């Protein structure tokens, strides 16, 4: 029996080095959603909140002025919320991909969608090492190239992993980006509304 793709954290390094090979392997033997989630995606999702926790506790937020220092329980709560949001982002994007699959003639396997989204997120998850020093602009500088890398992986990987024509894959990838943009901006909005209602850290007094 052929062995399917080893879903270890080492996969992250492989997808950065030779994405084509990893995508082809995934397409040939799509893993189950549970294996992708527990074997790979979960570990990736833990990184950004972990880095953010360590960085904020050590240095405080730096928005370009004097550092904003928060109490440790507050930082822990924010990091936990961050993890939940990333989890929601991963699962919802994979579900949206499966929902769109029929329109674009792509595979409807949830395991394949989940694996694709997790792999696409690798540059961003690793780039989140910048959270260790939570200076806003430093994070923008590191995460923008990571984002471009992720977009490249999405456009390159989607047609292969989900088995559709590259041109249809290009359209589907663009639709997913539209969803992610909207999800991201909703996150901004929800955060601001919560903040306005007094839920969240107090900056200053």
């Amino acid at each position, binding site marked *: 029996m052929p062995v399917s793709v080893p879903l270890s954290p080492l996969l992250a390094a492989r997808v950065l080095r030779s994405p084509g090979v990893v995508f082809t392997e995934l397409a040939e033997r799509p893993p189950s959603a549970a294996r992708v989630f527990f074997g790979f995606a979960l570990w990736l999702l833990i990184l950004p909140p972990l880095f953010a926790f360590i960085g904020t506790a050590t240095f405080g937020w730096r928005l370009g*002025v004097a550092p904003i220092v928060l109490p440790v329980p507050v930082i822990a709560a924010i990091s936990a919320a961050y993890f939940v949001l990333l989890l929601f982002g991963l699962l919802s994007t994979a579900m949206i991909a499966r929902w769109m699959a029929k329109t674009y003639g792509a595979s409807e396997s949830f395991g394949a969608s989940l694996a694709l989204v997790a792999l696409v997120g690798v540059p961003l998850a690793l780039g989140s090492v910048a959270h260790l020093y939570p200076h806003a602009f430093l994070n923008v500088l590191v995460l923008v190239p990571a984002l471009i890398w992720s977009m490249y992986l999405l456009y390159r990987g989607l047609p292969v992993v989900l088995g559709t024509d590259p041109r249809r894959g290009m359209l589907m990838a663009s639709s997913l980006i539209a969803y992610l*943009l909207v999800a991201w901006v909703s996150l901004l909005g929800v955060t601001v*509304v919560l903040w306005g209602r007094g839920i969240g850290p107090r900056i200053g*007094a």
Partner: protein
Amino acid sequence: MSAKVAAVHYEDRIVTAFTAAAVLWTVFGMLAGVYVAAELVWPELGFEQPWLSFGRLRTVHTHSVIFGFGVSALIGTAFYSVQRTSHVPLFAPRLAWFVFYAWQATCVLGALSLFAGINASKEYAELEWPFDVAIAAAWISFAVVFFGTLARRRVGPIYISNWFYGALIIVVAMLHVVNSLALPATLTKSYSLYAGAQDAIVQWWYGHNAVGFLLTGGFLGMLYYFLPKQAEQPIWSYRLSIVAFWAFVYTYIWAGPHHLHYNAIPEWVQSLGVVMSLILLAPSWATMINGVMTVSGAWRKLKVDPALKFVVLSLAFYGLATFEGPMMAIRSVNMLSHFTEWTIGHVHSGALGWNALITFGTFYYLVPRLAGRPLWSAGLANVHFWLALAGVMLYVIAMWGAGVSQGLLWLSLDELGEVRYGFVDVMEAMAPYYALRLVAGGLFLAGAVLMAVNLWRTMAGIETVRVAPPAGALAAESGA
């Protein structure tokens, strides 16, 4: 009779003229934008010249891209599509040429007046009263040519793109006339007929509907004609497009007060603005879905047609901007976002991501057809696509980072409940984002310059192709 058939053809030279003007305004207007972005990084670039100061140059930028680039592109594409969806040449072609020269003269002289510091102090309606009169004259002429052509149409139904262009013409005429009512004091100075909060409400009724009916409605007219043409198949759901049109027209007109949250206008007016802004999401997204589904059936064309890629991406940004807008209209979000760079990012995700990209896609389709030969370089168009995508993404990310930081810093208080960070502190925090925005704008401008070269080389030394209306239409005419 055959001689008559040969003589009748669409009036397309004017489309070429408007397209060329729009491309020139793109380059000039975006260059002005990049220059003001650079001034925010290096203020000394103003060289202590009043005409080069941020305040004047910023209005030159918005004036050039909205009225020079946007409106020229809209009038040109409206003239192109109304003839083809009506199967008749343009009504009153000389009046159409008057529209061209009057509009370009108004835009050029208007830009010079803004450089000179002559300014009516109304955002996106900065030109003084003599220009307002000239704009009204050109616009009414545009209406006569457009509706005259529609009235003579040889096709029963009025195609959906014409509904949107028609709404653009009628509503912008109404907005422009009402908002510009003023008492002239001298040739270069007038006083608005409205005062205080009333003036603000009228101004943002105008301002937001200029966004709605010009930058959204007008460009949807462009989308509804050119997307099915490029995809070579009909709109996914024609019925949805009609429903979305009426919902859009009814809802948009009320949304303006969301620009005036927490201001000295009645709270119920603000609330009305919020509710209508939220409802607006439905027709906006109905249109986006219609567009996305139309393209998804035409994927085979993607490889050969660089134009379609721009349209696909423009739909994604249209979806983003029309979601972000209603969200920012919610008062508790607006509390943080208002007056910050987030608003600038939002405007540019619409203006660069939607308006500019859909127009670029349309021009890459249109110009080879006006020239009667293929695009000079499809490769260059592809480079333009990636420059545009990188530019707009970087721009929006920079402004999100800047805007949210700015809002948080402004709202943070010290132990005594006083504002913790002063203006200078916050400006210093913004500097790196402004530099990033300058890079983003530069990338986008570089792409636009490549397009200008590409389209110029496609069209250079060539007369606009003469296209006759379908024979059936002419036979019907001679038979009648």
